């Protein structure tokens, strides 16, 4: 007996399910429906994605409750774990903050869709309810050696060719994804030499910065995003604060977080001009000593 199988999935003699399963169903099913409705009605794409993940996990519960343990785990691993993650990645690419307006552009679409949906529910529901089924058998016998073994017997027995074909299908899908998103190089490859030349030209034209800014951590005294980094001369580099914060006016001045550094910086120093570097001015050399 499989220890993982904690839910009694056995059917009663007349085809009804056990009370435990009933409770499970009536808890999960409404939540799933609500999640699905959230998929339809939520304005933000990420909310919709999370709702559908919720629905899929609920489905995994139901699969396990129906003696389809292998499928339930596969559902979580493949669907929720891989496919929905893929959705989320693409959402990030496409625009995670894009929110959709709920105004319908096509005239008369909403009522028509409502009608069709209602018709579909009523129709299919009616078909399903009114169909005459034979007495449910249950999967006790087939799952005797645990469900994965039972599934494996059928899968690798009858459907071995289908397995191979789906394998090939997956390979084709992966290759096609690469092909479809391939971008042709329209501009020549930017090499390091060209980057350097471009920087020199920009400096010559409009005095742009040639060298890199110091990496984060160098001359750093704080690591908040709203605190500007310091350059070697002690000046704050406003470009190191994210543009969003700058636009919102949320960046901090050096004096706000490190008054000592500001004081040190503002202390008049000797000729070297570097902070914390005291000293007398360099000796003046006479004309003759220079020549030596």
């Amino acid at each position, binding site marked *: 007996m499989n220890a993982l199988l904690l839910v009694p999935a056995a*059917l009663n003699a007349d085809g009804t399910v056990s009370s435990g399963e009933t409770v499970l169903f*009536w808890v999960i099913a409404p939540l799933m429906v609500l999640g699905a409705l959230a998929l339809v009605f939520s304005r933000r794409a990420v909310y919709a994605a999370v709702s559908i993940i919720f629905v899929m996990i609920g489905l995994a519960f139901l699969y396990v409750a129906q003696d389809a343990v292998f499928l339930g785990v596969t559902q979580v691993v493949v669907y929720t774990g891989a496919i929905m993650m893929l959705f989320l990645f693409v959402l990030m690419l496409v625009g995670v903050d894009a929110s959709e307006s709920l105004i319908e552009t096509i005239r008369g679409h909403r009522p028509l869709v409502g009608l069709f949906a209602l018709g579909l529910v009523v129709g299919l529901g009616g078909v399903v309810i009114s169909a005459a089924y034979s007495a449910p058998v249950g999967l006790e016998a087939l799952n005797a050696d645990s469900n994965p073994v039972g599934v494996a017997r059928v899968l690798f027995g009858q459907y071995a060719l289908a397995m191979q074909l789906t394998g090939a299908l997956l390979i084709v899908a992966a290759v096609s994804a690469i092909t479809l998103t391939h971008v042709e190089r329209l501009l020549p490859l930017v090499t390091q030499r060209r980057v350097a030349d471009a920087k020199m030209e920009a400096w010559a034209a409009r005095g742009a910065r040639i060298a890199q800014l110091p990496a984060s951590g160098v001359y750093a005294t704080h690591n908040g995003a709203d605190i500007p980094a310091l350059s070697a001369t002690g000046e704050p580099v406003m470009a190191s604060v994210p543009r969003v914060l700058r636009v919102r006016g949320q960046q901090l001045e050096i004096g706000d977080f490190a008054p000592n550094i500001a004081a040190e910086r503002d202390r008049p120093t000797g000729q070297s001009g570097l902070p914390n570097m005291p000293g007398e001015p360099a000796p003046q050399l006479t004309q003759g000593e220079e020549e030596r």
Partner: protein
Amino acid sequence: MSLTNYLVLAVVLFTIGGTTVLVRRNAIIAFMGVELMLNATNLSLVTFSRMHGNLDGQVMAFFVMVVAAAEVVVGLAIIVSIYRTRRSASLDDVSLLKH
């Protein structure tokens, strides 16, 4: 409660998935609706498998999952490449094929 309840739930989820496809303008969310429809079908397959005492239903559901995975890969790749060229993932923007 009989197994028919699962089937009704599957029908409801299927319809909601279909409605999503029809109502939402964002291509990715419409795609998610399609995934929901496939899942609903899987649920009904599993229920029928239990009903008939036959594991073929579960195997079919398994294959549906595999194919759905492949379909999602290709579909999202298409959406990404369309987005790259048109800077928009709205379904209403591709409306040139009209009278």
